[in-house]
């Protein structure tokens, strides 16, 4: 039963209301508290999955208003999904939180910037790229250098000064402009792969995605990269903007439907999770439910694809002690964790070492480090302490936000560590051969 359909449960409209059953299934055992990063840092029930579900239930029963406080608590969740993985009753608290955000988005006036970003920027790669210019100028003009040294950044409100230092140095041009539509396979063509180039990869980690395409081509894949694919929709969904998320999903489905390819591959954990979720997002859409099913069923993370095919084993040595951080959107979002490890261990010279709590969220979580700087840093410090314990020289991962956050963590902790995408390391091993 949808909550909105129940008498007295007027707080939630039917659009993407959490089902009352989902909320009721919580037996309140508290097991989720043990793995929730925000609970572990604060020790406060209000910052726990069980607490969030209790608040949503209270709101649905008319005992709590959609107040500013309520909204604030719904946005304190990282959506890391660790709670769902241990829940004996199968409650997905992190998804129920998104349902609540959708409801908030429907019911309450939203800040203008949200409309600008989600409805203005995300649907248009060109506009999104234009919006990155101020940051690029800030980094390249010497202004960042000056600001960091003069303490100018500390004068900005809302930790803006600190969060301006989060992103890596942006490449001069996004990869979208440089990558050919079709990259031929090296040697015999064995697969035809459509490449979903994520916004963050293209804008922040262009070199890393260029490496992904090289590794694919190296292993017999002809890679088709459509220029007009748009944001995967996850950022909009995470902010409760369901309409934009679904609009973006439909657009991507239309674009990739036209490409005759065996699989759609991405090297962004988040794009991968949303790509696989389109079938859920659009299951009630009369026109798109089948198309979404087809789209999701051919969507794969790059490590998943590579681990499933015979690989060119002419690799040169990369002498490094390497550890791996599991992005939430890969390990729990897609159940991908052994594949990147297998690929890393294939590289000669790599001394692979597991870190403690490798699948614990790094605190990056989309824009969380910017919106909840203090909590995010506490979670990051825990991650960096575990990483430092391994004495690794390289932390590999598979998500642009994680890599941005880990890179910041390395600088913040003063560690001698390199952060990289797992596939970029594989590319390095292929480079001299």
């Amino acid at each position, binding site marked *: 039963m949808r909550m909105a359909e129940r008498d007295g449960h007027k707080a939630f409209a039917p659009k993407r209301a959490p089902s009352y*059953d989902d909320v*009721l*299934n919580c*037996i*309140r*055992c*508290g*097991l989720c*508290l*043990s*793995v929730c990063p925000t609970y572990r840092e604060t*020790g*406060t*029930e*209000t910052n*726990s999955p*069980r*607490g969030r579900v*209790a*608040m949503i239930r*209270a709101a649905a029963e008319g*005992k*709590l*208003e959609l*107040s500013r*406080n*309520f909204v604030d*608590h719904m946005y304190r969740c990282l959506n890391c999904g660790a709670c769902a993985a241990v829940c*004996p*009753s*199968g409650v997905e608290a992190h998804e129920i939180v998104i349902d609540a955000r959708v409801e908030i988005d429907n019911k309450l006036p939203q800040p203008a910037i949200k409309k600008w970003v989600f409805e203005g920027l995300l649907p248009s790669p060109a506009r999104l790229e234009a919006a990155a210019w101020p940051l690029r100028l800030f980094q390249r003009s010497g202004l960042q250098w000056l600001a960091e040294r003069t303490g100018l950044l500390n004068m900005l409100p809302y930790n803006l000064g600190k969060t301006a230092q989060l992103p890596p140095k942006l490449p001069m041009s996004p990869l979208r402009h440089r990558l050919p539509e079709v990259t031929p396979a090296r040697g015999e063509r064995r697969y035809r792969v459509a490449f979903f180039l994520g916004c963050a990869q293209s804008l922040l980690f262009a070199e890393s995605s260029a490496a992904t395409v090289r590794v694919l081509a190296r292993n017999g894949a002809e890679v088709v990269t459509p220029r007009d694919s748009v944001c995967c929709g996850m950022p909009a969904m995470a902010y409760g903007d369901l309409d934009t998320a679904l609009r973006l999903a439909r657009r991507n489905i239309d674009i990739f439907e036209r490409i005759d390819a065996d699989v759609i591959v991405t090297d962004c954990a988040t794009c991968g999770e949303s790509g696989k979720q389109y079938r859920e997002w659009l299951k009630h859409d009369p026109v798109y439910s089948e198309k979404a099913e087809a789209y999701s069923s051919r969507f794969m993370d790059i490590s998943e694809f590579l681990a499933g095919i015979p690989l060119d084993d002419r690799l040169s040595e990369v002498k490094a002690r390497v550890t791996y951080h599991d992005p939430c959107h890969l390990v729990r979002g897609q159940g991908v964790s052994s594949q990147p490890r297998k690929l890393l261990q294939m590289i000669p010279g790599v001394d692979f070492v597991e870190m403690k709590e490798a699948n614990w969220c790094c605190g990056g979580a989309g824009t969380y480090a910017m919106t909840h700087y203090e909590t995010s840093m506490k979670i990051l410090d825990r991650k960096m302490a575990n990483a430092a314990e391994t004495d690794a020289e390289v932390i590999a991962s598979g998500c642009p936000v994680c890599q941005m956050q880990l890179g910041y963590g390395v600088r913040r902790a003063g560690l001698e560590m390199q952060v990289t995408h797992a596939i970029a390391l594989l590319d390095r091993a292929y480079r001299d051969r």
Partner: protein
Amino acid sequence: MIEQSALSELAGIVGKENLLTTPEDLACYGFDATPRLGGRPDAVAKPGSTQEVSKILQLANRAGFKVVPRGAGTNLSGGSVPIAGGLVMQMNRLNRILEIDSENLTALVEPGVVTSDLHAAVEAIGLFYPPDPGSMTVSTMGGNVAENAGGLRGLKYGVTRDYVMGLEVVLPSGDVITTGGKTVKNVTGYDLTRLMVGSEGTLGVITKILVRLIPKPETKKTMLVYYRTLGDAAETVSSIIAHRVIPPTLEFLDNVTVRCVEQYIHAGLPQDMEAILLIEVDGPASVVEEDAAKVVDVCRQHNAAEIQVSRSAEDSLRLAAGRRAALPALARIKPTMVLEDATVPRSQVAAMVRRVQQIAERHGLLIGTFGHAGDGNLHPTIVCDERDHDEMERVERAVDEIFHAALELGGTLSGEHGIGLSKAPFMTLEMKDAGMKAMVAIKRALDPNNILNPGKMYLDQFTQSHEPMGGVLGPRS
């Protein structure tokens, strides 16, 4: 209600950031893991020291508000539900392991230490703290002591009570006492340590805990054994112990549970077996081999249909998967789960399981029984839907009958979950008038204003014996 002036004083004691009063916060502190029980506190305080706890209790007496101590809120009897409002005092800021003394084999911890964090800390240096309640990855040591929590290893190693050597406790008056100490022998005065263990937050607030440690067992071996009849499984349990083997773990799953588990994890568990036993033996490698061989012999003698023995640590995990899945498997069938812990002498386990099955049939309910067969601590688990009023009435009658059955078989209302609110109406059945009077006398002597955890264990309602009052599950949320 807590007066505004008292709230200001509270903020002064714990600091503004450690006093929670928004409707959102209060909505998260009205419950624990007990189904259908709920209250609403007026505020939540997170004290950071023994002195702060003491000041809060003094203020509570002066300003006349109730105080409910809380660890992680994983309690299954409503012990941390603020049924009369007042202040919830969450103890998890006090979360340091203060000392691990490997000469005296003790650990001194604050109440907010998570049980499995203590496990990890002592096991890293070859020591062992055996109590392992099901919620140990989140439950706190303070909560474990206050509820006298048990676990899977109770048969061989005992329960929380058997490991607490001393405590620091803030009495309801605000006075701070220390009980017990590091010496194994200590006969000075009343055993106040034991009085506080299992007192469910009604007599004092625990602020430090001294626990006994033992050397970590060298190795272990796991066996999974299937039985066609319940009687054979039960006789195996008694017979193993008669053969001088004390397994730390001797777990039981009935047919209903096995079928639910199989539907959930598809591990190939046979559906036609009446019972499954999960047996673990531990100790030095040579002893483990010998004990395991004895156990296998005993199982064979009692007509075990199949016996699987672990060869590696991964094997052990695989064999234990079914038992671990029991709770989630049952939890997924329907939204509400009433998890009881009526406990009987080991020799009555089969009789108790049969009684539960008859009760289930009589009331048309789905009850899976699993639990700790070795110590007679069973978990008849009723899966139901709290929105179905007819079903919930049948659940209440069934629970009532389960309690009576346990007592008739020489057992107890609660083996490890505590009395709290949900079993409070049944206290006189087991304690009788004289026992209740003794408990009430202790409560009144230490907490004359009844400020600490009101409503729990029937202490403030008791006047004289009569039949259990009200619904089994207490007031609804």
